[in-house]
Structure formats: C-alpha cells, structure tokens
C-alpha cells in the first residue's frame, strides 16, 4: 500500500510543479499546522506565501489572528489536504498527530517540528528559528526586538510592591510553573500563586484551594453569560462571587494563554491593566 502510494503522489507532484524546477531560496508555499506557529507566520511573511494555516487560527475564542485567518486557506491537519497544497515547507508542533507527520515523511514533504515553548526566552528563540526557515531573518529580529521592548516596558516599577494573582480559566484551568504566562505574570508584578500550590503547566487549580487564600487578582477566562457548560460555570461559582470584595476579578481571555510569540504583547498589556486596576482599588480602599 505504502510502496505504491509514494511514487504515485510523487508523479502527480512533478507533473503539476514543472515550473518549480529551480529551487527557490525561500519557501513560497508554507503550511502551518499549529495555531501558535500560525500567529508568527502571518506576521513574518507576505500572505501570498502562506498556502494554509491551521483551522484553529480562525477560532476567535482561541486565536489572536482570527480576522486575518478568515481570508487565508486552512487545513484540518490531514496529510491529504497538506499534500494537495504542494507545500515546500510545513511547520508543525508536537501537538500534531504522529500519523500525519509519518505520512508527510513518506511522501517526502519537508516539515519542521517545533516544541511548545516553556519560557519567554524559548519562545523568542523559536521566533528566530521560524524566521530563519522562512528566509525572513530581518522581520524575525524586528519581531523579537518589539516583544522585548514591550516586556521591558511592562516590568513592575521598582517602587511598587507586587500583588498575588492566579489564572482561572473555564474548567478551573490555571497556568502554573514552567509556563510562559506564569513568567509574564511574575515579570509584570503578579506573583503566581498557582505555581506555589504545585500547579505545573496548564492544569486545574482546585477551587477550594483557590478560595482558601484568595489572591489579590484573579485572572478569569471569558465566559458567555448563562452558558450551560460546566467548564464555564466553575468560573462564575458563587464561592468566588462571595469573595469579590477581597480580590479583583480581571478578564483574561483564554486566547492570551494558548500561545507565546507575538501573543505575549497583548498578554502583558492585559496583565499590566489588571495589576493597575487592582492597585487602584486597593488605594481607594485604604483611603476610605
């Protein structure tokens, strides 16, 4: 089965791609299978070089580039769709299915596998790697410099005391130790209590633990009012509402949590906004 499939596909390839005999220095038909790589890709290259993004990119709840992705083709991460697009570079992450990657290998499509970055530095390094593969080193450096500048500007002023905070997304999911969001929180002056409670990566934070020592700022995910999903109900739990006088509830949409890369810019903006709001509330409370 495999043995006859590969030459067949290769033949269809050569027949239709006759003009692409001279290898171009830069990939011109790029496919990305990961939403986070999508968000880097759309900012680094002109959109006519993008053969397809991942379907998650169009989901406004998860993706920061939903608007741009609506005008670009997408795939649902099946080898069939990818092969039909005849890409010269496929960007994929560890989240993608092993079977799909194996299929690409069999057909001989070049793909690059990326890990999920666990820190800001790793993410910035990844932007550099992606930019180099795309032949967009200059754009990549500019993006890294822009993100670094934003992060530096968002740092907690030395004369201000940090506040405690926790992320609380639908399903009780929080960001703990070894996460980019956790690092961004510490950087902007929000001490991440979830990490201290032993939450690692993106895991649920037990509501009872959260309520037992309410943080100054609770960064809750977006919920649609009246939503019947159990995952969203926990974010609006009465126990949290009962403690509203003790903590500032700030909205921190899930799409800011899913990816690092350029998403770090709006993420720190939201974190700084939440911190400032909580500090303002504290000041008014102490003057009262």
């Amino acid at each position, binding site marked *: 089965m495999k043995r006859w499939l590969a030459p067949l596909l290769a033949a269809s390839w050569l027949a239709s791609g006759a003009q692409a005999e001279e290898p171009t220095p830069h990939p011109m038909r790029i496919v990305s299978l990961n939403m986070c790589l999508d968000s880097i890709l759309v900012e680094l290259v002109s959109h006519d070089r993008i053969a397809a993004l991942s379907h998650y990119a169009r*989901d406004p*709840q*998860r993706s920061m580039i939903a608007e741009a992705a609506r005008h670009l083709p997408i795939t649902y991460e099946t080898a069939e769709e990818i092969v039909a697009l005849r890409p010269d570079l496929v960007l994929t992450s560890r989240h993608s299915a092993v079977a799909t990657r194996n299929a690409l290998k069999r057909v001989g499509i070049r793909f690059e596998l990326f890990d999920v970055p666990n820190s800001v530095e790793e993410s910035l390094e990844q932007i550099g790697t992606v930019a180099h593969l795309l032949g967009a080193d200059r754009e990549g450096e500019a993006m890294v410099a822009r993100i670094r500048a934003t992060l530096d500007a968002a740092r907690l002023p030395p004369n201000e005391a940090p506040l405690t905070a926790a992320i609380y997304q*639908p*399903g*009780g999911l929080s960001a703990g130790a070894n996460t980019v969001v956790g690092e961004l929180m510490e950087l902007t002056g929000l001490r991440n209590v979830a990490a201290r409670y*032993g*939450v*690692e990566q993106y*895991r*649920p934070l*037990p*509501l*009872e*633990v959260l*309520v*037992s*020592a*309410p943080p100054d700022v609770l960064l809750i995910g977006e919920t*649609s*009012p*009246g*939503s*019947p*999903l*159990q*995952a*969203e*109900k*926990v974010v609006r*739990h*009465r*126990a949290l509402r*009962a*403690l509203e*006088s*003790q903590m500032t509830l700030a909205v921190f949409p*899930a799409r800011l949590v899913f990816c690092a890369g350029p998403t770090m810019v709006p993420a720190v903006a939201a974190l700084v906004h939440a911190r400032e709001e909580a500090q303002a509330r504290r000041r008014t409370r102490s003057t009262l």
Partner: protein
Amino acid sequence: MTSRRWAIPALLALVVVLVILSITVGRVTLTWDMWKAQDAISRAILIELRLPRAILGVLVGASLGLAGAAMQGYLRNALAEPGTLGVSAMSALGAVLSIFFNIAGLHPWVLPICGVIGGMTGMAALFVLSGMAASVLTLVLSGIILSALAISGISLALSLSPSPWAAGEIVRWMLGGLTDRSFDELTIAGPLIVIGCIAVLACRRPLDALTLGETGARSLGIDLNRAQWQLAFGIGLIVGGSTAVTGVIGFVGLIVPHMMRSLVGSRPGALLVPSAIGGAALVLAGDIVVRLLPGGSELELGVVMSLIGAPFFFVLLHSMRRKLT
C-alpha cells in the same frame, strides 16, 4: 432471607456520619480556629463549596439507588440500572443537545428539562425494546444500543460546538462528579429528583405484585400499564435531574440494591427505601475518596464508581451465568 431490624437505622447513621465527613474533609484542611472565625473565606468554603456538594451527594445517591432498585424490581432482572442500560447516557444526550441547539442559555431550567426528556425517552425506548421480564440478553443488548447511540450523539454535538473545551466537556458528561457544584445547581436538580422519587416510591405495590408474575399482578388488580409509565416518568425525572447537574454517575443503582437484598430481603417494594439510603452513603463515600486521593486535579466521581462497579458487574454476571446453566 430475613429482614434485619437494625439495618435501616444503621444505614441512616452511616449517611449522617458521611455527610459530616463530607463537610469537614477537603483539599483545604480547615483548623478549628478557622471554623470558629467564620470569616468570608471559611464561609465560602463551607457554605458555598462543601455544603451543596454534600446535599447533592445525598440527593443524587439516594435517587439513583432508588431508581436502580425500582428498575430491577420492575424488569425482574438483577442487571437493570439506569447507568448500565443507557438511560443516564440518554439524559446526558438530552442535556447536551440543548447546549448544541443553543436553547440551554435561555433559562436555567431548559437544560435539566431536556435531560429529563432524554431520560424518559431512554426509559420508553428500553420498555419498547425489551418489554417486561425480558431475557438478560435482550435487556443488556438494549442497554448497549442506547448507550452507544447516546455517547456518539454527545461526542458529535460537542465536537461540532464552537467551545474550545469540547473534549473536556464530553468527559465531564460521561464521568459525572460533584466537584464545585453550587446551590444554583442544587435548586434546579432538587425539585426534579424529589418529584421523581415520590413517583417511584408510589409504585411499591405494583412492584411487589409483579413478583407473582404479570398475570398474578393483574389478578391482584394492578394496572401494569400505568405502573410502567409512572416508573418511566419517575426514573426519567431522577436520572434527568441528577445527570443535568452531575453528569453520568453509573453503577450506583446496580451495586446498592444487591447489597441491600442481603440486609432487608428481596421483596422489591421493601427494597426501595433501604436502596435509597444505601445509595446516598455510597455516593458520599465515593465523593470523599475522590477528594482525599493525592494528585494534582480531582478525579471524577464517575471514575471511582466505575472502578467499584465494573468488577461488581463482572462478579454478578459470573454468578448469574452459573445459576442459569
């Protein structure tokens, strides 16, 4: 088998102890000082988190135990139970469809009512598929059909929905739990479950009469048709109300009546109330175990119930096979 007089008071005492444990035990250890302080935090933990959970545990456990005992009595089959026969899954499907068609947001009552409709549909389908006093095979096959249909429907609806949490939500529906439920949910499930329990308890006489067989029951003046629909209504309310709030908690209705039979005898009508009390004790105990298990996130209660229930089901089927051959 004789009825033991101490059985019911002992079970009631057990439920009381478990309710108290359920309020005192949790992820956070509340010291006596914190109890006495009665500040906003300890009040939020005790009243908003643990109390609704304990009450819901009692209600859901009791009603599921009752539903199991009634189904076993009516179908005269020791394997009958809302969870194993797919009635719970059907009611989860009803609830999930109300989410899928975006009508659940209209009013908090829409979702549980759709769950109840699903549960009643499941009961009706079960009666149609297997009829009264069906063979074990027909009954179990009907259950497999209903479960398969319901689970595929739930997976389909949630995968098509735009929520990024679809996978987690499917797990939450199929493996029920009491974690982090609040009084808001209790006030919705409570009335449905209570009405359902009353409807099922009123069927005690037909259930007892059915031990004489269908003709025997008819000759005693029992309207079996009415009893059948009353049971479908009551169990539909119970399963729909509890599933809408907790998801599918299986095996309670299977295990408890069997345990109670050795305590209070096997007369179906007399088995109902002890099964309810035993069900409450089992669900509360399971929910306490879930909280005490080490690990990052809490295990779903449905997992624990299946871990206890599936081997129990195995042993039961094994002993039945020996009896049949």
